[in-house]
Structures are given as structure tokens and as C-alpha cells.
């Protein structure tokens, strides 16, 4: 991490990128043409700003890249930031895109006869073991987490566990798998997140970018 180096902005791959790109452009950042080619093997891209480079990374890796300073700032889901809970990351701006909710869900029939006050230990399938453990520990329940990276909704029907913690946007995946939401843990949006050391050593540049993104969020109707 060198002071006279280019700043590196990390952007998430996949669906969320479509929501984020209008903000990035509005903030005055135009990545080189290859960035818009989904088949490009390249991972880092130049921009119209000679002091700024963009990298594409998986959403779940954002917290890791940002806490180690591999990227100076980036777009990260609140879910990922909560899961990693790193003291090396600041999340100064809510980009108000990628809206969804993190919920506890379980099969419809079991939800009716269940009494959460009796729980001392539960088993939960989730992509977010840390958030899940913290959430249940706060009310005195020990959550044994089964870490899955996808298709979490199928876990209860396979007999892996009775509950899941996952993101929902419309709730159709839950319904299709016979699950009902029993509790909301948090509402999730994408954040502009910044590496702490970068913020301390290059404050002017980074606060400048944060400000431009802030204006972009303000200008674009969500």
C-alpha cells in the first residue's frame, strides 16, 4: 500500500453490480470497456481517472479485501460487513441499493407448534454463522451453525436442520421450499466501505470520493 499508488475501488460481481454501476458512473467513474464484458478474464481495470483502478470481486470477499487494504474502498453488502465485523473497515455511506432482509425461516408446520422461549440449543443452516451465533446468543440460545454457501433453503427439507438464516428479497424462494419467515435479523443494503489505514493516511482523496458517492446517491432516485 503506497501513498503515491493508485486508489483501488472494489466492485462486487453479479446481480448487485447492475444496481451499483449507475452510482459509480454518477460519481464520475467510467471503467475501461473490458469491465462491461462479462466474459473478460481480466480482474483489474483502468478508469477515466488516472489515479483510480477498479477491481471485480465476489461480494463475500469484500470484507477480506477491505480489511487487509488490498482495496482502498469498495461496495460491500451490510450482510458481509456484519458477518466479518472487522475493525479495519469503515462503512460511511449507505448506497441504498441491493435492498433485502436477513431473516430466520423454518418449515411452515413446525413454526406453528414451536415455542422459542424453550430453546437452549438450535441447529441452523446459513451462509452467515457469525451473525447467526451472535443473534441467538443475545437471547441466551446457542446456535450450532451449518455453513452452506448456497441453496440454503433446501436444508430443512433434507433433514439437515429445522431452521435457516438467509437473505430474502421477495420471499418467493422461501415459499417455494415450504418455509416461512419467523424473525427478521436485519435489513440489508449495499454500503460504500473504506479501509481504515487508507482513510487515515489518504483522507483527502477518500473523503472526496465518499462525497461524490453521497451526491450520486442523493441525485439518483432509488
Amino acid at each position, binding site marked *: *500500500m*503506497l*501513498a503515491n499508488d493508485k486508489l483501488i475501488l472494489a466492485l462486487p460481481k453479479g446481480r448487485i453490480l447492475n444496481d451499483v454501476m449507475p452510482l459509480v458512473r454518477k460519481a464520475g467513474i467510467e471503467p475501461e470497456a473490458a469491465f462491461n464484458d462479462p466474459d473478460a478474464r481480466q480482474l483489474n481495470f483502468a478508469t477515466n481517472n488516472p489515479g483510480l483502478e477498479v477491481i471485480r470481486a465476489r461480494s463475500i470477499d469484500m470484507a477480506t479485501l477491505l*480489511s*487487509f*487494504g488490498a482495496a482502498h474502498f469498495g461496495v460491500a453488502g451490510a450482510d458481509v*460487513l456484519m458477518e466479518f465485523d*472487522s*475493525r*479495519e*473497515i*469503515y*462503512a*460511511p*455511506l*449507505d448506497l441504498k441499493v441491493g435492498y433485502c432482509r436477513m431473516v430466520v425461516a423454518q418449515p411452515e408446520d413446525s413454526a406453528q407448534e414451536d415455542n422459542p422461549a424453550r430453546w437452549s440449543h438450535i441447529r441452523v443452516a446459513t451462509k452467515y454463522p457469525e451473525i447467526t451465533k451472535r443473534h441467538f446468543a443475545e437471547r441466551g440460545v446457542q446456535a450450532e451453525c451449518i455453513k452452506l454457501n448456497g441453496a440454503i433453503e433446501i436444508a430443512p427439507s433434507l433433514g439437515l436442520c429445522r431452521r435457516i438464516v438467509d437473505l430474502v428479497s421477495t420471499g418467493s424462494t422461501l415459499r417455494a421450499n415450504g418455509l416461512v419467515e419467523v424473525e427478521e435479523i436485519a435489513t440489508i443494503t449495499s*454500503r460504500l466501505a*473504506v*479501509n481504515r*489505514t487508507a*482513510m*487515515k*493516511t*489518504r*483522507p*483527502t482523496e477518500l*473523503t472526496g470520493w465518499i462525497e461524490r458517492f453521497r451526491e450520486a446517491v442523493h441525485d439518483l432516485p432509488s
Partner: protein
Amino acid sequence: MKKTAHPALLPAGLADVLPPNAMQEAKATEDLIHSFATCGYERVKPPLIEFEDTLTSGSGAATADQSFRLMDPVSQRMLAVRADMTIQIARIATTRFPDAPRPLRLSYAGQVLRVKGSTLRPERQFAQVGAELIGSVLPAADAEVILMAHQAITNLGIEDVSIDLGLPTLVPAICEHLGITKSSDVQHLRTILNQKDASAINRFSEPAAQVFGQLLNAVGSATDALRVIKGTSLPLPALRQCEHLEAVVSILRKKAADITLTLDPVEIRGYEYHSGVTFTLFSPKVRGELGRGGRYQLSGYAEAGEQEEATGVTLFVDTIMRSIPAPVPTRRLFALLETPAREIANYRAEGWVVIEALADHSDPAAEARRLGCSHVIQNSAIKNV
């Protein structure tokens, strides 16, 4: 069959430091201690292990959950291995030097052990070098320690070291003033401020949203930040603290105008036991902190019962090692078996590393190269190999 671990495998977070890094670390430690000594800070050496209750009381509570513990078969009491040395120096100041004139200037260097590594420091054992200025409440004392730490690091060849100032007592003072006392509210607010989450602050009720919103905006260059802070309406105790901070900034500006100075009035994490101005040293070349410190209150061992204030700094040798220039390779000289000891001593005094032959060699030049020597002494003269 029991599977035995490979003999080279060490427990997580522990490592062998090898040449040339071990030497470089020792040298850096010595240089830092020397820098402090030239400012009148005298070295003390507390033990590695102490009674748990003394090591984890007062400001030691900050590292209580980071300490290894063991039972002392002799006293039948619990002992803790130090996870930080500041508390030990504070103990020495109040118990061994209660009558020494103030301000008291002490320095230290040593290894600490922690139960868990962190994201940026997976090491569980690492070296700390520090200094404490005990018994002064003046802003000049804060400035002295900050500038001394900056100079000590700069002396090692690290450039562009910036200083991030903080005032961890500010947020609690404002909370109290605004009547935010419920522990869940305070906790929530701390989380938001630690993440610098301006959007979440807006969801707080007025006037908290406004005050903390302004403070969040103040994060950045020290001069701008001070202006923003002075524009916020603060309760009296918070105002006093800000005046102290302003005085420190003005001394720093006057004495060393070229240092990059940032200010973060809402940084509280890691400074739970500080009572005044705090600071963190950063280099743009490495991730993580080079060192940190600040003002704190010494827990009262003193019979007088009055609390003493101190301000100190802890430098993290592992982070510093990652940012210092690579060591200059030493000049190595190979001396044949018959070379007189006096001659060898002279070369060593000139700065050569002299490797002595243990037997006769038919091809001294080849043997010299094998041992990493660039030169050989033959017949009282140096020859390039």
C-alpha cells in the same frame, strides 16, 4: 496410531524469527529505546508474568480477555502473562517511584503474549517498545510523547508517518449530557460510530443525530476537524477536553508543521480506558498501526488516594519491521586458520564480519564463497573472492 505433529509446526500465531530478521528486530528495538533515552526516558524491565488481579486491574482491564493465565503453585494464586506492558509501567510508577519527582519518564521494551491474534496481526507473541510520561496534566506532555514517538519511528528510516488524534471521552460525555444512558443504546451508538455509518446516525433522534452527525463529518484533517468540533454545541466537560486537544494540536503544529495530522473524534474502539487525548501512528506503506497511545489515569495505589495522570505510547515492533528498509548486507571476511587473533580483531573493529576457518582448506577462496564471504584474509592482506 497416534499421529505426531511435524517438529517444525508451532502453535498458531507463534513463529521462529530467523536471520537477518531477528537481528534487525533487535536493532530496531534498541534504536527505539535509544531514541526515548535521548529524551530522558529511563528503561525499566518488569517481569513476564504477574498476579492476575494486578495485571488486569484499572487500565489493564482492556487486555484482561487477551491474557493467558496459569496457576502459581507457590502462592496458589492466579497469574497472568502480560498482553500489554503499559499497566506494568503504571504499577511501577505508583508503587516503586511514589516519591520520585514528577513528571517521571520511563521506557520499556519486551515481548507480550495474547490469547488471540487479530485480522491484521495474527501473531500471538510480538514485541512492544514504549514510553510513559507520568504525572503531568499539561497539553505539552501529550505533545512531547507524540512527537517523540514520531521521531523515534522516523529515525528508523520510515517516511511519511502520519498521526491520527482521538478523544475517546468525548462521545461518552455527550451521551451523558443528552441522557443516552441505556446500555443497549450506547452500544448501538458505538457500533455506528466505529463504522462511521452516517446513514444510521440519521435514524437516531434529535439532538443526538445532529451532534454525532457533525462529529462524523469532522473526521479528517486535524485543522478542519477542530473547526467542525468547535461549531458543535458541546456540554461543558466535553468542551474542556476539546480545549485540551486544541492546545495539543497547536503545539504539534508549531513544533512540527510538516507532520500529517488527522483527527477522529468518534474513534473509541481500543481506547476504552483512556481519559484524554489519544493517538495512533500510521504509515501509508503498511497496513495496520505502527503504534498508539494516549492519556490515562493511573489506578490509585498511592496512599494519598489521589489519581495521577500519565500519557504514553506503545510501538508495535512487528508492524514497524514491515515498513523499515531492508538491512544493508554485512561485509563478510573469511580468515584462514593461521590468521593472528589481533589482525582479526582489527578487521572486526573496522566493521567486517570475520568468519574463522576451523580447519586447513586447500582452496580458501572456494570455502570463503561457500560460507557467504566476499573476501578472504591471506598473508595479512584482503583478497576478493
